[in-house]
């Protein structure tokens, strides 16, 4: 991976990194190209002070001090911004790590120009989701043909992360002007981190099912395991379901009916709006990360038990996976959960119209689909969506990662509001799993004992 940044390109690449989050937080509206730093402003005027004093006192050494100041001012004024002709390469020690792995990033910058770059400052465009121990920044001086290296480590998290162009600042020797450019390090550097899908404890589903057999017990009598009812024998009933005991006792033929176990269609919907990126503190994973984790456990568990599973994101962008079964479908779900930009570990700033989304989602949702809605319930609208989908006949189960904290009155109030949303949903007949600190499997076991069919 290598790329060249030259003078002409440095001023024309203004569109890169314009998606808000990658702009230098210190200088968000910093202009590109040659920027006067203004650090020597007033030097010439200041130089006149000793000159004036020298004239008043008729003392030549003071005038000479003034001459020195004028020399510095002239130096700063005559000093042109350096021509930036550098090649930047970026290498990752492992472009496809597992979550939590440390990846070493090596950034090499070579001065291809004829002149010395006396003050070169580099800020690498590290993806916002990747945490670095030390900042990915370098300040150096570079002679023609020489290469400087910046090495730093990032900790991999789920997702496909693209590096932004390197922010390069080259100052002239006096520091009076600097050239500000974004230079691509060759093609895009991408770190792909795809976690394995791990099935957790089986997920208790609600009664809405398809016509296919599966493991969700229904209220329909037929073939199955759990006793449902008996009825009169009809011609054609299988002999193994005839109630022979009753026939022996009374001589009448009757047929046993069992609860039919059918497969369900489940759409796992993840709330990944900007407002759902919440965490109780800076170190904890945010609610979207936890929602994706819940989905990553639910999807294989459901697929293993023969249910049809689809995935959707309640977020900007078109993140939907039609319900399906099979290994190939599981692989597709894994890829979508890991790398879809709508489920990225940091929010996008795309515009989002929730009402339109709900309308489109309903149109897309199969009529017999249940919805597993993963949301931290950050606002009333998330609860409204759950109730509306439930009212349309899609049995909704809410898995809600708790992102509230109780360190300040404001945080406590947010916690109370969320608790109210949970109890309102429960009183509306919607199952809510309030997912606190414990592992999801434990919480599911506990909830399964509580929930009736």
């Amino acid at each position: 991976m290598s790329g060249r940044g030259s003078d002409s390109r440095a001023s024309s690449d203004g569109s890169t990194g314009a998606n808000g989050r990658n702009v230098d937080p210190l200088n968000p509206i910093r202009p590109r190209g040659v920027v006067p730093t203004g650090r020597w402003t007033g030097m010439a005027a200041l130089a006149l002070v000793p000159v004036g004093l020298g004239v008043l006192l008729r003392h030549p050494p003071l005038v000479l001090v003034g001459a020195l100041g004028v020399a510095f001012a002239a130096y700063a004024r005559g000093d042109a911004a350096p021509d930036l002709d550098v090649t930047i390469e970026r290498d990752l020690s492992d472009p496809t790590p597992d979550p939590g792995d440390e990846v070493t990033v090596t950034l090499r910058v070579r001065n291809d120009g004829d002149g010395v770059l006396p003050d070169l400052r580099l800020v690498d465009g590290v993806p916002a989701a990747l945490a670095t121990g030390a900042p990915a920044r370098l300040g150096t001086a570079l002679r023609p043909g020489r290469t400087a290296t910046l090495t730093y480590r990032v900790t991999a998290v789920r997702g496909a992360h693209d590096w932004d162009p390197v922010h390069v600042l080259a100052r002239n020797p006096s520091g009076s002007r600097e050239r500000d450019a974004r230079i691509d390090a060759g093609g895009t550097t991408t770190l792909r981190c795809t976690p394995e899908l791990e099935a957790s404890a089986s997920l208790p589903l609600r009664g809405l099912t398809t016509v296919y057999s599966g493991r969700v017990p229904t209220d329909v009598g037929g073939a199955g395991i759990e006793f449902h009812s008996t009825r009169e024998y009809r011609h054609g009933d299988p002999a193994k379901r005839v109630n022979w005991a009753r026939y022996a006792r009374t001589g009448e033929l009757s047929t046993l009916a069992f609860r039919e176990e059918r497969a369900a269609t489940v759409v796992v919907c993840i709330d990944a709006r900007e407002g759902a990126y919440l965490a109780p503190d800076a170190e904890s994973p945010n609610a979207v990360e936890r929602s994706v984790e819940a989905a990553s456990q639910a999807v294989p568990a459901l697929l293993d038990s023969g249910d049809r599973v689809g995935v959707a994101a309640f977020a900007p962008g078109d993140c939907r996976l039609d319900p399906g079964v099979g290994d190939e479908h599981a692989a597709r779900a894994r890829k979508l959960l890991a790398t879809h930009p709508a489920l990225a570990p940091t929010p996008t700033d795309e515009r989002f119209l929730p009402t339109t989304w709900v309308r489109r989602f309903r149109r897309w949702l199969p009529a017999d689909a249940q919805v597993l809605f993963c949301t931290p319930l950050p606002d009333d609208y998330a609860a409204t969506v759950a109730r509306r989908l439930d009212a349309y006949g899609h049995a909704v189960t809410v898995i809600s990662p708790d992102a509230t904290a109780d360190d300040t009155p404001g945080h406590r109030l947010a916690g109370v509001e969320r608790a109210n949303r949970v109890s309102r949903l429960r009183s509306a007949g919607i199952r809510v799993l309030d997912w606190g600190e414990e592992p999801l499997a434990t919480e599911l076991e506990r909830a399964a004992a509580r929930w009736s069919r």
Partner: protein
Amino acid sequence: MTAAPSAANRFLRHSTVVSGVVAVILGAVAVGLIAETTLQRQFLMGALIGVSTFGLGGRLWHRWRGAVGLGLVVCGCLVVTAAAGNAVTQPPRIIHRLELLPGILGLWTLAAALVPIGFRWSRLLIAVGSGLLFVAVLTSGVVRGASTTALVVAAAATILAWDAAENAVSLGVQVGAHPETVTVRGELAHVMLSGGLAAGAVVAVLGVTHLGVDSLPFEALVALLVAGVVLLLASHR
């Protein structure tokens, strides 16, 4: 619930060490050149020890927030205050008292600017500190204390001290001063280039003196310099 922060751009935003130390040393050189008497030099030495203790303590306190750092800061402040007090009261000639005080205060302010305690005020403190050093140099010139050479070199050292300090802050803002962030090459290159220019300018200015400025009408010299400034301000690049 709080919005999850991004850790990617976390960096230590304070002035870099090498340029900061160079700035304080250059400031000390400037004050040392205008100090004529042994007594003044002794007080300056004391002040320098105080300023170094203050700077070291500030850095320790910034990193570990321990009592040692805070103690060193307080000790440094006391030593500087004592040196400044002596510099004002002890020297027999009033002009010697006048030229040393702004120098010591300037050094102290410059060190305070580069100690990473209140980074927001760094640029202001650097301006004030270098301004005080410059006042000390000017005072020495006004009272006709130091020789022409010492005065010009002290002025150059003052400008270089400001340049290095400002560069330390500028690097601190753009690149940061995290222990693992490497900026030494760039800092040294900047100091050396500015130092080279200063040396050239000093040699040129002193060369002009040796050409016999005294025989030149004084007004002609001043007019030449003012014309130079006007030409400079009028030139657009």
